[in-house]
């Protein structure tokens, strides 16, 4: 049997193989390329035995290539998913889920505190009940509000530090709301933005859940 023929259609197949294996790990790329080279050589040998002319073999080669392009892209997607799955399922998900839950719990507590201290500062709760003699508590609420912000920042950054070696994306999702904490005390619009970012981070985690693969 001869080695790979030097033909335009062979070059096209090999070029396409390099394209759809780009960025995958070296072993996967090498195995796929070797497998395709083997297929090209076997195909050439088989058709030459049946006395097909070179041009006809080339046309069949291109037809097999083009008809298989969607599957090649799907194969690449499969490889990327398989490569990502063990990290997501065994390490990232539990750590980041716990991180997000802690952060969300803190966020809810802080939001409740923010509303409460705001009501105390106005000496009213929901604008209906005057609270005489609570002025001192409003000052204390302001001081403990700063403590809340510092504690929240510390918690968020610690969680981000834990998540970063495993998944930089999730670490960023944790860090962004923590940055929002610092300013939300002064601006309610940023508080709403923080909620949106947290929801986005939670959605991101949910979509990272592994999909079952048949069969």
């Amino acid at each position, binding site marked *: *049997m*001869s*080695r*790979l023929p030097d033909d335009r259609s062979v070059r096209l*197949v090999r070029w396409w193989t390099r394209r759809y294996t780009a960025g995958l790990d070296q072993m996967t790329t090498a*195995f*796929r390329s*070797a*497998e*395709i*080279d*083997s*297929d*090209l*050589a*076997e*195909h050439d*040998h*088989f058709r030459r035995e049946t006395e097909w002319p070179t041009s006809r073999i080339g046309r*069949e080669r291109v*037809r*097999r*290539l*083009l*008809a*298989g*392009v*969607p*599957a*090649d892209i*799907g*194969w690449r997607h*499969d490889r990327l998913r*398989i490569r990502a799955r063990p990290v997501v399922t065994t390490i990232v998900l539990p750590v980041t889920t716990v991180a997000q839950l802690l952060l969300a719990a803190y966020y809810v507590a802080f939001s409740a505190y923010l509303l409460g201290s705001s009501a105390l500062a106005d000496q009213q709760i929901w604008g209906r009940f005057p609270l005489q003699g609570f002025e001192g508590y409003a000052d204390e609420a302001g001081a403990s509000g700063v403590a809340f912000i510092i504690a929240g920042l510390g918690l968020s950054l610690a969680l981000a530090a834990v998540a970063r070696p495993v998944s930089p994306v999730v670490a960023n999702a944790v860090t962004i709301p923590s940055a929002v904490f610092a300013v939300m005390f002064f601006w309610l619009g940023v508080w709403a933005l923080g909620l949106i970012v947290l929801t986005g981070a939670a959605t991101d985690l949910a979509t990272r859940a592994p999909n*079952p*693969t*048949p*069969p």
Partner: protein
Amino acid sequence: MPRRKPGSLLPLEVSILAACRDAGTPGIHGFALAQGIADAEESRRLTATGTLYRALHRLDDGGLIENWWEDPNEAAAAGRPLRRLYRITGAGATALARAQSDADELALRRIDPGFVS
């Protein structure tokens, strides 16, 4: 596109498993499988490269076939690129038998709608 039922096989996967089973050699390479499938279906067209190898890898990931690379000395002696060889596993043989039995039952139902297995 609807997701397929877990454990079910695509027609091409059934053809691949059947070709692996019928090969009668310790292992069969990808292009020989394409030939075997074309012969079995009495088709002149060979399965598209991407379609064939994606299906092979899917079956391999599912444990229905196993693969290994042939001895490099053998390939060098024959003057050709290294072959990746495939073989059906026990789980693959079971899945193939089930798929073929389901197909037979479906065919019988088409002939006789009152058929009960």
